[in-house]
């Protein structure tokens, strides 16, 4: 059942058997309520310090647990990290005392206990993954130094934090690691993780045992434990509370009796739990009854899970063993041939990636490929930032796509979930570099059938490489259920003889190796006309040959139509329900001249038609240079006034076909923006209208910029398209330290960009030091600061002072709901802008 036992230190044979799931192991119960009962938990008492100040009491409680049958005693160190101890004692001293206490109680196994940091990790909170890791690492080292026999990481609500703790324990000790997470009544953690996702992610990380504790009683935990058991590759731990807490006379009480608790644990044990104990509200009596339940019993063997899983913290893509299942990997986050994505990556504009991600998810992708490989970028850093931005905003699990092992590791280390690594290949050097990362971080992996001699032309040649990859992976402790093989598609135009070999290879690797399969579909049509048609045909053939995960552009309805139809044929879409829902009203693209086939596209068309070009008043004069397209200009003005970005882009494109970018910018965009600003000032527009108009102009600017970059326009245009690196139009903007409100700052940023300034956005909660650093590095001459709350105006003042002190010649403009000209003057700001339109005017005057 358990893997990796050879690399850890196991105290004795019984523990070894327990880690193999062959015997039951009983842990202890609650500590807090026991300390309370002894009157030790007075006002402001830190329970972890009681190891030092009330050692005998702690030992006495733990002795009661030993006598009740607990084999594992957890040290009283749940909150003993440097942050929470806050200098009152060292982490090492607390763990030493706590382990001594537990040993003095007669514990068979002393488990160094590690609880959550107490701070929220990014992106919700401000603690970085590395900071959490460092806190946990100090605890883990202290536990090992104090001669603990194992480490218990418990009550984790954030999968990412749990992963930081596991890595810290793994990299700093050689002890067995148990990790348990806590779930709410809805069966998810606060951050949306299900037991199945936690089980798949954490057990792939190679911990010795995983499970659930706290929050709920045994009855409520039973179904969650069963969900976990399906995906756990090691022994399952369950430590419920003594029922659900309720308040009585100002005290928390639990209603389940020790006998009822033990009784309710029976189905949990039947579901596969072999390591059991209690959490809040449980006492030695609970553990005594529980010990009796497992006494003399042997656990039932549990099969090793064979499902292929790729998961984010919130969403799993599961290819169940033995069931037909096709899942789409979206390929669009890849800069190859995508100038806009390239530009976004160069500018570290990860919002653009989020847009691509959401579009693909809505179109039906289950997994999103993330590739940021561009020669001029620092790939490890860019990939990591891209992955962090995506996991903060979209639920779809990610495929980390890079040929650089350093970049792969940078991206997967802090990923909350079980990512799919794309890829490893059959070259020995590559196997040696990538597989240890796959194993260490518990990932699934795509193996490419190429090696030192290239890509073999025959199916058998490809299968042979696939076999070597699978064997090498297993040699690294990676089960074959975590492997998908990509038999590598060649173009039919150049390698026609190989096409059927590729399909045969897909069938063979599945049959002979029992792994999943992946193919990048669109290569097949390279060099042929009607590429989509060829791709869709090949896709259908490949699915028939056994392809599980096509990598494709899900925005192409044609491919998704093929996938949806195939899911009816292979039985995945039971009763064809999803198909009927999506297609019963759809028209056949080959009949009656209907333009679109898919239901999705039909909907798109409807939307476009409804956005009719109703014409309103035109508040700007059409410039002479554009008089031949006056109608189009008036339409663009309407798109801006009504805030419609999509038609704006198309109309701008049309305008630029025969006219200069500069005429579009200075003759249309800027004048209409001035009108928008005026309308806002007069109260004719409210804020969302101003924003929507600004976004529409931005869509137009993007088109202009793309054209300028293609060299189809005069250099004069570039100055006004925020493309120049000239520090003369650079503005740094930030929401000040301590403030997390960034809507106002975002509006200012957008408007400034509309007026052609290059804006460096530092985000929210930005320290004065960082503002100074980034301003200095960028050479910007103007800084815009925003604060919404009276409490953070102080931080704004500090920032203004630091900028003035360290960066003479740099001006600061301030704004925000509670600010006034008077406040701005008091804090020494150079400019006050009451709103975004004013900020744009200030900047224009300043640089003008």
């Amino acid at each position, binding site marked *: 059942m358990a893997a990796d036992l050879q690399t850890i230190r196991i105290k004795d044979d019984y523990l070894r058997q327990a880690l193999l799931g062959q015997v039951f192991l009983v842990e202890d119960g609650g500590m807090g309520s026991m300390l309370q009962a002894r009157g030790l938990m007075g006002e402001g008492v830190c329970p972890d310090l009681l190891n030092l100040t009330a050692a005998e009491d702690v030992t006495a409680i733990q002795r009661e647990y030993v006598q009740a049958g607990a084999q594992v005693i957890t040290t009283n160190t749940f909150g003993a990290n440097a942050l929470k101890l806050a200098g009152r004692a060292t982490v090492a001293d607390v763990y030493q005392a706590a382990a001594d206490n537990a040993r003095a109680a007669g514990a068979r196994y002393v488990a160094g206990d590690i609880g959550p940091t107490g701070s929220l990790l990014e992106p919700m909170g401000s603690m970085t993954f590395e900071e959490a890791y460092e806190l946990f690492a100090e605890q883990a080292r202290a536990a090992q130094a104090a001669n603990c026999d194992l480490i218990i990481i418990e009550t984790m609500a954030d999968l990412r934090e749990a992963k930081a703790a596991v890595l810290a324990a793994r990299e700093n000790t050689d002890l067995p690691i148990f990790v348990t997470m806590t779930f709410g009544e809805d069966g998810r953690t606060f951050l949306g993780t299900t037991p199945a996702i936690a089980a798949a992610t954490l057990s792939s990380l190679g911990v010795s045992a995983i499970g659930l504790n706290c929050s709920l009683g045994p009855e409520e935990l039973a179904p969650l434990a069963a969900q976990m058991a399906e995906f756990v590759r090691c022994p399952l731990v369950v430590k419920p509370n003594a029922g659900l807490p309720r308040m009585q006379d100002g005290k928390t009480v639990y209603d389940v009796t020790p006998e009822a608790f033990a009784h309710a644990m029976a189905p949990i044990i039947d579901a596969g739990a072999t390591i059991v104990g209690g959490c809040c509200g449980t006492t030695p009596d609970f553990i005594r009854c529980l010990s009796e339940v497992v006494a003399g019993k042997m656990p039932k063997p549990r099969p090793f899970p064979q499902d292929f899983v790729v998961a984010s913290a919130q969403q799993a893509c599961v290819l169940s063993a033995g069931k037909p299942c096709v899942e789409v990997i979206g390929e669009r986050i890849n800069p190859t041939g995508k100038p806009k994505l390239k530009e976004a990556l160069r500018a570290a504009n990860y919002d653009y990636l989020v*847009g691509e991600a959401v579009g693909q998810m809505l179109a039906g992708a289950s997994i999103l490929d993330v590739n940021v490989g561009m020669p001029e970028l620092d790939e490890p850093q860019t990939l990591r930032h891209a992955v962090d931005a995506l996991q903060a905003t979209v639920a779809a699990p990610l495929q980390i796509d890079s040929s650089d092992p350093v970049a792969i590791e940078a991206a997967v280390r802090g990923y909350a979930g079980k990512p799919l690594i794309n890829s490893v290949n059959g070259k020995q050097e590559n196997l040696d570099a990538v597989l240890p990362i796959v194993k260490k971080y518990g990932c699934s992996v795509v193996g490419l059938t190429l090696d030192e001699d290239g890509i073999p032309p025959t199916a058998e040649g490809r299968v042979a490489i696939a076999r070597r990859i699978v064997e090498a992976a297993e040699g690294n402790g990676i089960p074959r259920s975590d492997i998908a093989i990509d038999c590598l598609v060649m173009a039919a135009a150049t390698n026609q003889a190989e096409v059927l070999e590729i399909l045969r290879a897909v069938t063979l690797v599945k049959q002979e190796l029992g792994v999943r399969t992946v193919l990048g579909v669109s290569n097949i049509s390279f060099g042929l006309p009607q590429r989509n048609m060829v791709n869709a045909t090949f896709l259908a053939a490949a699915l028939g040959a056994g392809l599980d995960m096509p990598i494709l552009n899900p925005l192409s309805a044609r491919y998704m139509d093929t996938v949806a139809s195939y899911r009816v044929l292979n039985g995945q879409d039971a009763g064809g329900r999803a198909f009927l829902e999506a297609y019963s009203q759809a028209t056949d693209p080959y009949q009656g001249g209907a333009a679109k086939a898919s239901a999705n596209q039909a909907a798109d068309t409807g939307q476009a038609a409804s956005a009719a070009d109703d014409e309103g008043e035109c508040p700007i004069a059409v410039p002479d240079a554009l008089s031949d397209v006056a109608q189009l200009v008036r339409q663009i003005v309407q798109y801006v*006034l*009504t805030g419609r970005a999509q038609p704006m882009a198309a109309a701008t494109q049309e305008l630029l076909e025969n006219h200069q970018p500069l005429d579009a910018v200075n003759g249309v965009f800027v004048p209409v923006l001035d009108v928008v600003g005026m309308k806002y000032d007069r109260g*004719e527009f409210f804020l*969302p*209208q101003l924003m*929507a108009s600004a976004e529409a102009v931005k869509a137009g600017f993007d088109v202009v910029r793309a054209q300028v970059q293609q060299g189809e326009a005069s250099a004069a245009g570039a100055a006004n398209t925020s493309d120049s690196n000239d520090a003369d139009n650079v503005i740094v903007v930030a929401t000040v330290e*301590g403030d997390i409100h960034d809507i106002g700052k975002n*509006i200012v940023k957008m408007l400034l960009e509309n007026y052609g300034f290059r804006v460096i956005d530092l985000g929210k909660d930005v320290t004065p030091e960082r503002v100074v650093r980034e301003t200095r590095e960028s050479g910007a001459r103007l800084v815009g600061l925003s604060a919404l709350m009276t409490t953070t105006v102080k931080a704004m003042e500090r920032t203004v002072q630091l900028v003035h002190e360290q960066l003479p010649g740099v001006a600061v403009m301030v704004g925000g709901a*509670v600010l006034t000209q008077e406040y701005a003057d008091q804090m020494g700001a150079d400019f006050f802008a009451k709103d975004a339109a004013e900020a744009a005017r200030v900047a224009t005057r300043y640089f003008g």
Partner: protein
Amino acid sequence: MRSMRLDSSVDEAEALRYLGYAGQQLDGSLMVRFHDAAHKVNALRPVGMFQAFPIECFLNDEEGVSCGVRLQGTPFVLPGRDIAAHVRGAIEVALMAVTLGAESEMLLRRETALSKTDGMLAHACASSLVEGAANSLSAKVEAYAQERGLASGDRFSPGYGDFPLSSQRDFCQTLGTQKALGLCVTEANLLIPSKSITAVCGLFAQDRVGASPCEADERADAFRACESCPSEGNCAFRAEGRTCYGS
């Protein structure tokens, strides 16, 4: 203490008001986007919790004015003259917390990444939703009060008047919001998830409650709290008929 699911849905008129809407002529496409934002936000599941504590005593400052409220069974003292005045005469106070959860953070981040306008619309809708959830929790507090022959007064939140934002941390620790709701407090004493509300509510003998402000007066009462705010007189929120603690 356990969390409970709270019924709430976006009050579109209120959300528009948060956005500064004052009867401007609206283009259809913006309204479509607004409804879309409301629809997404309505899919969130607000949760909350409350716990009632008997009042042990009022603390007085050197001027003899009540400047704090000590509660039984917890070391947490409600600090400030305004909160003391707000619950004067109450027998118990309920500490309340509601949140739209981590999912709301992800939704708002996503919407903002996709479009700043849509993000802003979603923010306003989420503020309205959490306000509705707080009202829903208030109804539960009122039901609890009635069971005990009491009646509940208005909500009063850290950050109102001289009830300092810095009491957020102890407030949340006393209630156990991190464990029950996943609701935490930042270094700068702001709530995370940001679409969350904490509040204190006095539970009065039923014949006393008439003397205390009632639900309908909530907004007026809120403005009274502004009177002791350092920004009183130059507050941009007030200028628009809103308050800084609206969300």
